């Protein structure tokens, strides 16, 4: 309840901060302005925002912020820029919603922005990513540390998995992360990445195969593989 309250207070503060000037102006508000909430249909939220209702955009952010953070986090594995890129995704969304035609769902549209911006971020900061092999405070955590062999400490496993994921080519990494960790279906991925399902299945398989090979060849993890077999 505490966290929910903090979100609500923050939301109200931002709303007041942003809309003091707006209230004095004569915007064309929808009749549903007061009825908007986080569960309101995306189309209504978008339409309301396009009619000048800034609150609608706040609800869109509230609705998708966790998903977008998750996508950015998966692509920029263990980067200090995850927060920065997540914010930029919504800034970009704010500007581009005017051109949103509604051909695809809003979630797909935001996912596309998030993926493109994350990949662009890696592209323009390739030097930083190539120099940063491991970070002390890992973004990856173990679900249950007791399951893993006693020799394998938590940080080692997290680092090795991070390295293995980072070794994947961009497209394979995106497909693997969204499919495996974000549980997106092939149909959803096809819509977001604009690629046929067959291609995505093949990409997912080759990504998994490469990951298996990297993890198997790792000295600390090879034991785990041989035990399994």
């Amino acid at each position, binding site marked *: 309840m505490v*966290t929910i309250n903090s979100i609500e207070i923050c939301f109200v503060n931002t709303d007041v901060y942003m809309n003091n000037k707006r209230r004095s102006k004569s915007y064309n508000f929808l009749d549903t302005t007061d009825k908007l909430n986080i569960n309101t249909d995306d189309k209504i939220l978008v339409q309301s925002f396009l009619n000048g209702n800034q609150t609608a955009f706040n609800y869109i952010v509230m609705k998708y912020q966790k998903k977008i953070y998750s996508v950015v986090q998966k692509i920029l594995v263990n980067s200090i820029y995850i927060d920065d890129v997540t914010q930029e995704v919504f800034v970009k969304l704010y500007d581009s919603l005017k051109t949103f035609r509604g051909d695809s769902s809003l979630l797909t549209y935001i996912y596309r922005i998030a993926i493109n911006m994350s990949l662009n971020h890696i592209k323009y900061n390739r030097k930083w990513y190539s120099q940063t092999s491991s970070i002390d405070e890992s973004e990856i955590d173990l679900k249950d540390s007791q399951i893993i062999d006693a020799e394998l400490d938590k940080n080692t496993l997290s680092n090795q998995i991070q390295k293995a994921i980072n070794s994947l080519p961009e497209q394979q990494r995106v497909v693997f992360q969204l499919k495996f960790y974000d549980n997106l279906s092939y149909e959803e991925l096809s819509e977001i990445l604009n690629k046929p399902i067959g291609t995505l299945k093949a990409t997912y398989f080759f990504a998994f195969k490469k990951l298996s090979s990297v993890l198997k060849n790792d000295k600390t993890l090879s034991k785990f593989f041989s035990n399994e077999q």
Partner: protein
Amino acid sequence: MNNNNKIEQLYILLLDYIEGNLDDENEIRNIEQRLKTDLEFRKTYNELTSSRKLLEKIEFKEPDEVYFASLLPKIRNRLEQKKSKRKTISFSLLKYWQVLIPALTVILVIFLLKGPRSPENIYIPNSETNISSKDTLSNNDEKTSTTNISTEEKNTKKVRIGNETILEKKSKTNIQPVESTLEENEFEEYDYQNILYQEIEEELMIEKEFEKLSPEKQEIILNKIKEIQL
């Protein structure tokens, strides 16, 4: 579909089989049969299952609710910063235009005033050059007579078309209409000056002859001229 493609297809479907997402019974049967007969296929299956179990044991940390509570104000702050940046850029552009617009207007006015002239087709005599040419004359009387001509010259311009010489009144702005029928090199400065000299000489001769006459005769001539003018 050849045999290689079939095997490749089975490899790709292997992950769906492991994850339990394969619905087609025919495909399931094919994979299970392959697992029994093909060692390489079985090895890949084991590798994928092992790595999957390993990868399943980890999860990506999600920030706490406080982070997400602060995300919206951060985004709003960025939007505000972006807006103010845009305003500054447009304001600086506006400042720049405040200087540029008058400058462009001045350039345009100068161009309109001087631009449309075509000195190649029509020669407009310069009074200064006439005066300088008149300076070669030593006689004072001659000088006085030439000044009359030069003042007259200021108000008229001479254009020679073929063998004819035409006198035209100058416009105030000195902008002359270009006649398309006129050909280049038809009006030459050299010829025009010669004509001027001839006219001046003729007038000087008349003046000298007039001076040679007796005062009575001069009076008669002057009276006749006055009568004609009246």
